[in-house]
């Protein structure tokens, strides 16, 4: 009798083990499926744009829709040749974007680095005040800021110039750059530059020879982030630029869309042109960005 009970107990238990095992298999499958769905959602819009930039206009407009794509470089050719796609001076926009973004990034990084160093290495009265103030300025929405900026800059005659936009972008990027570089400099032990000074360096030399090289990757990511912010910025640029002389690509894209809602292929090509630098740079910077964004993580 006892033997029978024992057997029964074993059987029930095997079922118990099995149900748990099956459940874990099913769960695993569900996870992978969900992950696949998520990644597709992330990639599809971008891929769709890229795909369509290679399709002839006729096919894009076709109704009922054609699902088998054919290939053409027409849009890109038109983009780079002559006056650009349908009269849109894409190359000028591209040139403006590059000039403004690169210059403002370099200046912002220099200013940001020196500010970040100040916060990381020195103690002074009202330090948190300055820090919070700096961050809060970043909270001002671009579009709200553009109103008075527009008035001020037009008085000074800096509307529709590279300089005006550069100046504005530098100010926009400095807070975040300071924040990032502050985090990175804090991670470098003070003893490093103290040892360098004992070895005979001035403060300035110690910085460039010892601390900067170690923080280099952090500074690089701050630079990339600043570049992307400038590259992608729209709200301020849309009002502070007027003509081909200084319009950047985001503004150009909007203009393009407003005027030529029919030429989707061309616009897709323009969009691709905008995406590529962003993607490449993202790939380079992803690790550091997270480190910088988490305020030094939970360890404080």
């Amino acid at each position, binding site marked *: 009798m006892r033997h029978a009970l024992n057997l029964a107990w074993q059987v029930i*238990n095997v079922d118990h083990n*099995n149900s748990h095992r099956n459940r874990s298999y099913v769960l695993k499958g569900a996870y992978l499926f969900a992950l696949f769905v998520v990644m597709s959602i992330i990639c599809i819009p971008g891929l769709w744009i890229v795909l369509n930039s290679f399709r002839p206009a006729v096919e894009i407009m076709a109704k009922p829709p054609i699902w088998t794509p054919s290939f053409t470089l027409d849009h890109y050719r038109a983009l780079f040749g002559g006056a650009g796609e349908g009269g849109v001076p894409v190359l000028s926009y591209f040139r403006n974007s590059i000039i403004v973004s690169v210059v403002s990034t370099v200046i912002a990084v220099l200013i940001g680095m020196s500010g970040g160093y100040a916060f990381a290495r020195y103690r002074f009265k009202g330090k948190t005040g300055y820090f919070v103030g700096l961050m809060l300025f970043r909270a001002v929405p671009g579009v709200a800021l553009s109103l008075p900026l527009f008035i001020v800059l037009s008085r000074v005659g800096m509307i529709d110039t590279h300089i005006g936009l550069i100046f504005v972008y530098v100010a926009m990027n400095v807070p975040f750059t300071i924040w990032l570089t502050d985090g990175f400099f804090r991670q470098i032990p003070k003893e490093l530059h103290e040892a360098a000074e004992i070895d005979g360096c001035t403060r300035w030399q110690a910085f460039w020879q010892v601390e900067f090289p170690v923080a280099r990757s952090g500074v690089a990511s701050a630079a990339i982030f600043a570049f992307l912010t400038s590259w992608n910025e729209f709200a301020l640029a849309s009002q502070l630029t007027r003509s081909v002389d200084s319009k950047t690509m985001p503004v150009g894209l909007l203009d393009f869309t407003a005027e030529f809602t029919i030429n989707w292929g061309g616009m897709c090509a323009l969009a691709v042109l905008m995406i590529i630098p962003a993607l490449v740079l993202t790939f380079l910077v992803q690790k550091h960005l997270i480190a910088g964004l988490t305020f030094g993580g939970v360890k404080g």
Partner: protein
Amino acid sequence: MTEVVIKNVIKRYGENQAVQGINLEIKDGEFAVLVGPSGCGKSTTLRMIAGLESVTEGDISIGGRRVNDLPPRERNISMVFQNYALYPHMTVRENLGFSLKIAKLEEQKIAEAVNHAAEILGLDELMDRRPAELSGGQRQRVAMGRAIVREPDVFLFDEPLSNLDAKLRTQMRVEIKKLHQHVGNTIIYVTHDQVEAMTLADRIVLMKDGYIVQVGTPLDLFNQPVNTFVATFIGSPPMNLVNAVVQGENAIVLEDGSHLPIPSSAKNRVEDGQKVLLGFRADHLMPKGHAISEEGPTGEFELPINLSEPLGAESILYTEIAGQEVQAKMLNPRPVVSGEVLKFELQLDKCHLFDSETTEAIRS
């Protein structure tokens, strides 16, 4: 009934086999200690019993129930982790009561159980503190309290004392032993410290490289080690091993030519010319006049003292026999000078013989 049975269990990580097919039966209410050098598979085995690692092959049963695929919460076990694993955002009281809260016990019952555990472990004053505010020893006790609050079938301890300083360690060892006497459940304890194993265990399971080398009571392993590994692992200082060759049926010859009779345990089990290792503990090699007086055959040596470590009630002497360094003990010690030569007595009845090649004990 809460015996734990491990049958032919193998654990593989890719190419690496961490546990190589072990068999073990731990009886109900037993305090079993898994001990061995790091990498021997003891922690892995414990975690498989807990359900924190999967079992590659074989079966694990707790209380007659096969538990291989069951998650930890269904095995009715509790565990004390090496790093205590306390919940940092909860107070001591909340830490202790957490598992009962999950089990949806009434608040009053939870408070009772928590207070009872706190009393046993002396935590009453710390109940409202957070782990970050506690010392190492206090955290240890909270971890133990958390384990006993649930009254599980089996307690698992994973090197709980390794992070404590030496003095605290000896104190906590006593607490754990008292706990076992008080509560009486099956305990499976993992450590790399043979002193803990010896003092705590009902039975010791000595492991190496994923295998079980010997299972037995502490005295079993101390007095009858199955091979040189056990002999040198258990006991402090470790057993001395000296090279020798069997001569005839009754004697062994050391490398410096001196003769000794064969230990009685190995009589009739050796062959002439066999290479062996003579094993003896420091407790059985003592200077004349500073020894435990015992009867039985002794071998006599005149040995130089290279180094001495005075411990107070006894000293450990570093000397050499036949060119190999050995350790001896001296009771009622007097100061010794390095280079001094003393007359030593070796108690032959307490010696062991091991085969040089297989390292196994030669014993009837």
